[in-house]
């Protein structure tokens, strides 16, 4: 049951994403039928699953939500801005309720009630026929699949103001087919031996017919029945012909036979056969059957769960996952509240358990991986047999074989990465909510636009991005975008815009948060930093450095501490979080136009492409992603500065020249007098600042597995991590950004106390 519950919650997550997507599309003005249906289905599926687990809160709320959505679907009201806003709010509540059911924080009942009331209000404005029209359709569309639920609804009014429940479960009626469904059914002896009964099947068929507003017509073929004297009591002789109304789908009919398909002969044919039905069937078969079933003392104690009859009307995913023991409900006397207590108990117990991490992966990715592993096995066998040969040709083939295995290994690595990769959509869509909430707290009107949600990154990154992004977006809402009055005064549209985008750029993922606010007030930032003692008053800082001051611990320019931000903890936490992921933050800001924050993150935290270089006698790795070019310098391009450092001019760009061995204090040999013909690597940090590193030798380009040096030793300046090379030696991976920042720091010759912080 726990497993199924977990699957249910995963389904919920997917449905909530679907819901978010649909509602976003609605708010963008796409009110196509398909969009509305998708939104409706999402809520409906959550309700369906929740009902089978007895998650009452969830069922209650999603029911009301669904009812309102049904109004939208049936065109009773249009998806106006306000309506969509209410739905978005309801979605937030719904997702909190899902979280609560999963064992998360309890949802404030007043929030639920508020959203509840808003939804009900929408539904009411949709037209007075709400209570009549949809209720009327409901009467004949009996929500059999939720039969345990209506009973649960009765005591609801304790928590919520009474909402007229119309029990419209919004069954999606199958498109009317032209012809009726004809079912022929002959139970085997085994069906009775199992304790089942032909009667249950007939009841199941009657139920699905009634669900579609029709009735079944049954005729019994007793031609095979012997006289009483010859009759074997536990042998099955009878065959039934049942005609179902045309609206009934084959799938739902098939589902009736799900549990008995082994124990009976049945055929389901769609054809117009009404005329063949014996006219003496006086038509009353269907409802009496139900009444009888409801009132009959439980004949099926031990087989209550068997007939899956009413199930099929559920949307497929839920249907597949949560077959409900509906027969039990059918046999309960009306009004009984003994719904499914064991299920509820189990569900609640499971809800308290911490969630287990699992991911859903496209099957084809697993298949790809499997194919590659197959090839790897073959390649390994080839190498094994080649290695036994001693002739020169064998040696040559061995080398070839090994190199093809290398490419295979890389493919496998990519395939594994693809398995772990997840679109950032899940995180990004959560941000919509963050912005909505922040807007309602600050009273601003801001639209968040998402771009590149399909960009895939390693799942560890996806999870860890949530907090930094939340901080950044709250900050953008609170500080970035001006108040509506200020915007209008500045000649901007009253509605603020934030764009959150993700893209792949040269082996890294770049996430940008761009607002169209006032931009960073550098003067104020500088003054604040001085006031807080972060920098001395006489410090000379570049624009970029001033921008970066907002990431300093304890920095906040907000005049008042608001709920959202202003406590001076947000931004430095963001920076630390991003840095711990191996990422960098860049800021660019234009006064009056807005600010753009960029996070550049590695795609994976495990492997990087690096260039093997030698400096000061040590082999080290520099991430390829930060290397712009490599070249051999001419003395004439190098200019000495008074402090002893050098700059190099490359095609007119001047950048600091850093002897790597010296910078890392590796070299015991004195610096060379002439730098002519030195090998340099031009490297760049995330904000675009460049420096040239002088190295002794460029050895190779390779993939390295990242091992944390901080967790194994301690942090070292200029080193981000370590790796183990093919020969078994440990090699350091250089932190290019730190080196560049430190070099730029030298050249700016700014007060030394700010340097270490900015260099990080």
């Amino acid at each position, binding site marked *: 049951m726990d497993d199924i519950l977990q699957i249910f919650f995963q389904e919920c997550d997917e449905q909530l994403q679907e819901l978010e997507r649909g509602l976003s599309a609605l708010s963008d003005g796409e009110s196509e039928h398909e969009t509305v249906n998708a939104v409706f289905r999402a809520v409906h599926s959550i309700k369906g699953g929740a009902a089978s687990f007895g998650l009452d809160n969830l069922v209650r709320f999603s029911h009301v939500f669904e009812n309102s959505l049904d109004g939208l679907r049936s065109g009773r009201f249009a998806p106006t801005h306000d309506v969509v806003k209410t739905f978005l709010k309801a979605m937030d509540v719904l997702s909190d309720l899902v979280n609560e059911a999963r064992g998360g924080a309890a949802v404030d009942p007043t929030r639920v009630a508020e959203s509840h009331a808003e939804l009900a209000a929408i539904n009411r404005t949709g037209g007075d026929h709400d209570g009549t029209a949809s209720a009327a359709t409901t009467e004949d569309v009996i929500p059999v699949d939720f039969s345990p639920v209506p009973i649960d609804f009765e005591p609801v009014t304790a928590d919520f103001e009474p909402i007229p429940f119309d029990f419209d479960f919004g069954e999606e009626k199958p498109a009317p087919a032209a012809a009726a469904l004809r079912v022929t059914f002959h*139970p085997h002896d085994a069906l*009775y031996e199992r*304790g089942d*009964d*032909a*009667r249950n099947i*007939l*009841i199941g068929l*009657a139920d699905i017919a009634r669900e579609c507003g029709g009735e079944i*017509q*049954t*005729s*019994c073929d*007793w*031609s095979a*029945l*012997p*006289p*009483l*004297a010859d*009759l074997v*009591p*536990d042998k*099955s*002789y*009878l065959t*039934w*012909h*049942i005609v179902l109304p045309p609206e009934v789908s084959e799938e739902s009919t098939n589902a009736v036979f799900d549990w008995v398909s082994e124990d009976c002969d049945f055929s389901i044919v769609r054809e117009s056969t009404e005329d063949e039905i*014996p006219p*003496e*069937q*006086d038509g*009353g*078969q269907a409802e*009496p*059957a139900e*009444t*009888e079933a409801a*009132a*009959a*003392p439980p*004949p099926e104690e031990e087989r209550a769960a068997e007939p899956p009859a009413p199930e099929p009307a559920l949307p497929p995913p839920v249907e597949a996952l949560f077959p409900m023991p509906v027969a039990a409900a059918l046999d309960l006397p009306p009004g009984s509240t003994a719904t499914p207590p064991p299920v509820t108990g189990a569900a609640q117990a499971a809800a308290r358990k911490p969630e287990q991490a699992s991911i859903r992966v496209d099957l084809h990715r697993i298949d790809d991986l499997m194919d590659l592993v197959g090839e790897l096995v073959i390649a390994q066998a080839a190498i094994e047999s080649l290695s036994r040969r001693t002739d020169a040709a064998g040696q040559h083939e061995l080398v070839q074989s090994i190199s093809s295995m290398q490419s295979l290994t890389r493919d496998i690595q990519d395939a594994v990465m693809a398995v772990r990769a997840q679109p950032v959509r899940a995180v990004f869509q959560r941000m919509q909510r963050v912005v909505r909430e922040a807007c309602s707290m600050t009273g601003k009107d801001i639209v968040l636009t998402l771009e590149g949600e399909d960009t895939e990154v390693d799942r560890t990154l996806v999870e860890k991005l949530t907090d930094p992004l939340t901080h950044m977006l709250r900050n953008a809402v609170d500080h970035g975008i001006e108040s509506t009055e200020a915007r209008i005064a500045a000649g901007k549209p009253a509605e603020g815009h934030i764009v959150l985008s993700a893209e792949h750029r040269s082996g890294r993922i770049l996430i940008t948060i761009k607002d169209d606010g006032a931009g960073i007030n550098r003067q104020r930032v500088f003054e604040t930093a001085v006031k807080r003692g972060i920098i001395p008053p006489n410090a000379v800082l570049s624009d970029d450095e001033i921008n970066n001051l907002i990431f300093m611990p304890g920095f906040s320019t907000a005049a008042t501490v608001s709920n959202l931000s202003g406590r001076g903890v947000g931004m430095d936490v963001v920076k630390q979080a991003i840095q711990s992921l191996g990422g960098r933050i860049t800021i660019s800001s234009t006064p009056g136009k807005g600010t753009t924050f960029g996070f550049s993150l590695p795609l994976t935290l495990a492997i990087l492409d690096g260039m093997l270089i030698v400096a000061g006698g040590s082999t080290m790795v520099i991430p390829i992603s930060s290397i712009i070019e490599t070249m051999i310098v001419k003395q004439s391009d190098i200019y000495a500065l008074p402090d002893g450092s050098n700059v190099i001019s490359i095609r007119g760009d001047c950048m600091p020249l850093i002897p790597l061995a010296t910078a890392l204090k590796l070299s015991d040999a004195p610096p060379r007098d002439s730098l002519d013909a030195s090998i340099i690597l031009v490297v760049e940090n995330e904000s675009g600042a460049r420096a040239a590193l002088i190295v002794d030798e460029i050895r190779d380009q390779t993939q390295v597995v990242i091992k944390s040096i901080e967790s194994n030793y301690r942090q070292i300046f200029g080193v981000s991590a370590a790796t183990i090379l093919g020969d078994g030696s440990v090699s350091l991976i250089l932190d290019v950004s730190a080196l560049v920042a430190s070099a730029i720091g030298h050249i700016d010759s700014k007060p030394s106390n700010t340097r270490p912080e900015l260099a990080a």
Partner: protein
Amino acid sequence: MIAEDEAGPTLSIAPVPLPERLDTAAVEALKDLVAQAEAEGSALDASGIAYIGGLCLQVLLASGRPLVAPSEKVREAFALFGVSEFLSEPSTSSSELSA
């Protein structure tokens, strides 16, 4: 001694009361009961039946014995099984049934 209303022309003694639950477990007993009723030429009293399963239905159909005073439950069950006509023809015989 005479059963009320449509007890049928052949009835000479009281109809045999049938048990409340005619489920699969009750089928053997029902067969004996019905065989006995057939031997005695008596009708079957269906007034107390609350549940009829498929196997017991077969026995009742095969016997052709008239069901006296069928309860609402019996009517519903027969309708469900598509054999309502069996109730409305009290004197049906098994030979007619198998026609």
